[in-house]
């Protein structure tokens, strides 16, 4: 199954009831999967919106009604959704937003890139808010993290972004779904469904009293602290004895892994650290690694964005190098291996005896 379809099927199995999307390459297969498979499900709804702006606001509407809902797009379309995402975050409305990102800036290229890291993790929209950001690196994980995204969104009443890329969205890999579609679609208890038998409800942020808005911000951030504590996720690979740790996420991480396997075969003690949640970012674990690792290589398919988070974690305790290819160029494992090897010897790191 294609990565894009895997997300769609996983969403349906997670009880996603409403999907709103707008075509854009390289995520069209997801929109099309939902058109084919969600539109005819009982109680479910698929709408091709007139724009990405519309789609995110439809998601907002469906989330108001308490159902699991989702939209997907690619980089330029995600930019258009920023205002809507800020509203979702502000109104504490769960939603899943998939970014199968591509080369930028501008219209860019439709090839895979990771240049939307800042946009996803720092909030491309206005105001102090955060969204959970999940970065899968295989088709299996696209499916698994989609399921997790819906759970997290509901548990913390927060928008969750799945940051994939054109390579993951377009490729096919063996895949197993771990859940069946629920027989009954979930509805949140705080839904707006008419004030029957209860006082009327209001969902809003606007206020003429800044202190009220400040309180909202504080309450959001208390929840964010909780999420940081509970939900930070990462993968480590051969880091125990590693002199050099490559930090990479998503597609770049699987490429790096290939390079590392070869580096190990060559006797280089290289490991990998892969953040699975880009927010909350696993600062602590990286900070821990500074005790055993001599050098870090951050490898991204962009000009260097996650590297700031790595720097924040490392706090100057170890040197950090960067290797990046932006614009939709997909580096090869052997290219990364060359980088690792050169760096390894430059920095005089110890090889396997």
């Amino acid at each position: 199954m294609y990565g894009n379809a895997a997300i769609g099927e996983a969403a349906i199995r997670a009880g996603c009831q409403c999907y709103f999307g707008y075509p854009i390459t390289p995520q069209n297969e997801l929109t099309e999967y939902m058109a084919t498979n969600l539109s005819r499900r009982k109680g479910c709804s698929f709408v091709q919106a007139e724009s990405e702006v519309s789609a995110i606001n439809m998601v907002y509407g469906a989330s108001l009604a308490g159902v699991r809902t989702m939209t997907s797009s690619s980089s330029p379309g995600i930019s258009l959704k920023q205002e809507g995402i800020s509203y979702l975050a502000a109104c504490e409305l769960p939603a899943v937003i998939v970014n199968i990102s591509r080369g930028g800036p501008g219209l860019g290229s439709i090839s895979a890139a990771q240049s939307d890291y800042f946009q996803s993790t720092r909030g491309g929209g206005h105001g102090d808010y955060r969204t959970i950001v999940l970065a899968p690196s295989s088709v299996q994980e696209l499916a698994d993290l989609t399921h997790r995204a819906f759970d997290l969104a509901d548990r913390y009443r927060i928008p969750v972004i799945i940051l994939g890329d054109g390579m993951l969205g377009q490729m096919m890999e063996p895949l197993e779904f771990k859940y069946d579609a629920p027989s009954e679609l979930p509805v949140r208890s705080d839904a707006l469904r008419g004030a029957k038998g209860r006082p009327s409800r209001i969902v809003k942020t606007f206020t003429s009293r800044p202190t009220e808005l400040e309180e909202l911000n504080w309450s959001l951030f208390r929840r964010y602290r909780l999420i940081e504590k509970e939900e930070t996720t990462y993968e480590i690979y051969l880091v125990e004895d590693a002199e050099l740790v490559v930090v990479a996420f998503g597609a770049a991480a699987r490429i790096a892994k290939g390079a590392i396997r070869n580096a190990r075969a060559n006797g280089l003690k290289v490991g990998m650290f892969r953040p699975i949640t880009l927010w909350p970012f696993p600062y602590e674990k990286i900070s821990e690694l500074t005790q055993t690792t001599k050098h870090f290589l951050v490898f991204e398919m962009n000009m260097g964005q996650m590297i700031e988070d790595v720097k924040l974690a490392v706090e100057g305790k170890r040197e950090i190098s960067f290797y990046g290819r932006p614009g939709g160029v997909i580096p090869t494992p052997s290219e990364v291996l060359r980088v690792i090897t050169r760096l390894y010897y430059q920095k005089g790191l110890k090889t396997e005896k």
Partner: protein
Amino acid sequence: MKKVYRRPKSLKRAAFHYCPGCGHSIVHRLLTEVFDEMNIQDKVIGIPPPGCSVFAYHYLDIDMAESAHGRGAAVATGLKRAYPDALVFTYQGDGDLAAIGTAETIHAANRGERITSIFINNAVYGMTGGQMAPTTLSNMKTTTTPYGRDTRLEGYPVRMSEMVALVKGAVYIERTAVNSPANIKKTKKAIRKAFQAQIDDLGYSLVEILSPCPTNWKMNPLESWQWVENEMTKEFPLGLIKDATRTKDSTGKRDAD
């Protein structure tokens, strides 16, 4: 003696924040009268806009959620699709519905979303201090047309309702005003019909309401009510613009025009 007029049940007991003579609160009252009469207070969900009516939820005693500027029709679409049993309406200003929300409005109407839009045309951006709206009359002075709206540079008053009437998913569109007892009564009737079209699952309904904004027009309340009559209705003629509620059956299979 018998009480023959009292506050509607669905209207909360709060003092309106609107300026003296403003039309917004009249429309609020009419909405709640319709809710009471149709007994739908507990089914209705309203989407107020950024705009002078942003605080509508302080007055209407129903479920409500704020929307981003111009996106009411998209928010209502999502809500209605997720929960079709609700009666969903947007409340939108002319800046909201006819400028930034043009695309959302036209396409929700075209899809025949079973929602209702209450469209307050006061010929200006009220909330933000009286800038030009798409509906600002030719030569009218606003804070962004300080020399009067120059149609050669700033365009013409947009008749959004007529435009929306062209799409088939729109089944009921009427333009009314809240500047006289008779017009206020007609407005209420139109609101009722619009909700009825939604209840009957026919498609999109829209009531455009010409509404005085004495503050930004720089008039006293009565002058502003008269200005609606004497100037606005010339550009925006009152009356039914489209009614396809009878030719369209509830399966929606038959076309609306």
